[in-house]
């Protein structure tokens, strides 16, 4: 590990680029969100209320100002660390995000860890047995799971492990819960509470890990196959290297850099990318918050969650750029 090789100017340059990107993303998002037809006021007043009432709400929320003014105000507030107040929830956006982000991060990091722990070995195994029966069977499985939409898989698992288990007369302790993050009404503490949350997360994590692992397995199969075709692998074999040494010293060293990058890039993806799974399982995370905010035209929440998400993406990119020279000696300038 040669951290000192990372030159400071490069880091600063990347940091500046990241900030510009962040600004660009939130600005475009702001414009797009406000271009969408309908506005929050329409959702906040009764359907039969007079037009003046909607106009009054619009004025209270500051939606009657020109878009540029709204943007400038919002940006100024954000720079002061204030994300504004949700229209629909009447709570500060910051606290909404503080509540939802850990929930999503937990779900995301558990499924991401499983994704790589399952996907990479499967891909390696397939590449090592390329063209044989095992490879074919695994290819069929990974490609099918890769082609299946996660929300549909989620419904299928709920049908089997929640409703099906109930129909087969399994005791409630063996049925997997289909909704929410903990049992409603149960005042659990300590270990019981942790176990309850774990039980609730089995189905969502399974779905996310299965879909992710299928993609990673496909990726590592094709990149390991490409690596195995290289001259240096043949040279290593010719010099009498054992199979394990070929895979763990030569192949792994070459497949690791792209996988590290994929990992960094996938981390923010699982936070908001799990929106489909979060909606099906009523999981109170970022994806669901964003989803309901978009439906309600709750601009401050949409913008706040987008900002959090964009910041995650940008910092993950930055992390990938910084880690890459460490795992890949060729990138050390």
């Amino acid at each position, binding site marked *: 590990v040669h951290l000192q090789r990372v030159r400071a100017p490069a880091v600063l340059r990347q940091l500046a680029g990241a900030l510009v990107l962040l600004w660009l993303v939130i600005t475009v998002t702001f414009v797009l969100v406000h271009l969408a037809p309908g506005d929050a006021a329409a959702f906040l007043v009764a359907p039969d209320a007079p037009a003046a009432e909607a106009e009054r709400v619009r004025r209270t929320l500051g939606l009657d100002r020109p878009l540029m003014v709204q943007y400038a105000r919002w940006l100024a507030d954000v720079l002061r660390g204030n994300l504004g107040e949700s229209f629909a929830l009447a709570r500060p956006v910051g606290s909404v995000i503080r509540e939802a982000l850990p929930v999503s991060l937990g779900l995301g990091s558990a499924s991401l860890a499983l994704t790589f722990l399952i996907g990479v070995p499967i891909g390696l195994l397939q590449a090592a047995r390329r063209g044989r029966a095992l490879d074919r069977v695994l290819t069929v499985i990974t*490609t099918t799971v890769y082609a299946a939409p996660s929300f549909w898989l989620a419904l299928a698992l709920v049908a089997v492990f929640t409703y099906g288990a109930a129909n087969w007369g399994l005791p409630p302790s063996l049925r997997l819960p289909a909704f929410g993050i903990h049992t409603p009404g149960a005042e659990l503490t300590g270990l019981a509470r942790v176990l309850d949350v774990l039980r609730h997360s089995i189905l969502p994590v399974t779905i996310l890990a299965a879909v992710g692992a299928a993609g990673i397995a496909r990726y590592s199969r094709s990149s390991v196959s490409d690596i195995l075709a290289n001259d240096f692998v043949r040279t290593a074999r010719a010099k009498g290297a054992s199979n394990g040494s070929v895979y763990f010293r030569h192949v792994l060293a070459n497949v690791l850099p792209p996988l590290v990058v994929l990992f960094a890039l996938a981390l923010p993806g699982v936070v908001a990318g799990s929106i489909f799974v979060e909606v099906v399982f009523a999981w109170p995370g970022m994806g669901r918050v964003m989803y309901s905010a978009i439906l309600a035209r709750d601009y401050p929440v949409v913008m706040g969650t987008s900002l959090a998400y964009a910041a995650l993406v940008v910092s993950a990119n930055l992390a990938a750029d910084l880690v890459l020279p460490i795992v890949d000696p060729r990138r050390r300038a």
Partner: protein
Amino acid sequence: MSIGFRGTTLGRVRLTAMERWSSIGLVLLALAVVLVPLFSRADPLAIGDVLSLRLLPPGARDASGSLHLLGTDRFGRDLFVRMMLAGRISLAVGVIGSLLAGALGTFVGAIAAWRGGVDSWARSPRGVAARWTPSAWPSPTRCSPCRGWCCYWCARRSGSRGSARWWSCSSRPAGWAWRAWCAGRCWACSTRAYVDAATALGASSWRVLLRHALPNALGPAIVATTLGVGNAILLESGLSFLGMGIQPPQPSWGNMIAGGRDLIVAAPWVAIAPGSALIVTVLACTLLGDALRDRLAGETGTTLRERV
């Protein structure tokens, strides 16, 4: 079957079993989605005698004797006909979106090969993919306003019926365009010697672009386009499932699955039928794309899509 571009002669190509079956499947599906709604007596949108028709199991005949191959939904509409009508939208979204992306990708890829200078602002394809694609933005934010805006625009121009179709076509290409572009660029980076060679032989720059760079950027673009069809279909269905895409009563595989969500125990076929159609279609596109990649693009690796 003979496939050949200028510069890369493939000659007569024997299709593998996988290529053959996935292309046959896609062609049959395309024929079915066009023909079935045309020739069926059942109206896939109208709600008739709900009480006697609703939730008939697959293969059941109703009182009037007509067969419901895949059963009926909660409003008594024939699932098979609805599924085929939905398939029109899905295939149109996938193909049109991906073709637009592919065309743009080929074009930019060819330019990149032609004028290597593009490299200076886009050092690595990964960097470009990560930084400057809209995929850096959360998908619902990205899609909903686009969709809303396009719906609004189309509704003003042509009545609201076709609008859902339009947004889906128009809001998706951006993401894939960049991916196709990257594929084109990766490829362009690796083999730019022929551009130098052609230039050294005195070819004009237009000739280099049209006769050398463009045909050579075609392979990766075809692969990216084929894989993109499946991804576009999947994303459209996901957004429709969330209620942000095609709106009922217009069927889409995504909103049909959403309609079967709370019937998953009482009438599982309502969600299983469109889900299977979705999986089979995306699977066929993916297999075809994989096969084409092995054939045309060499080592471009697999692209990962967003999780839908």
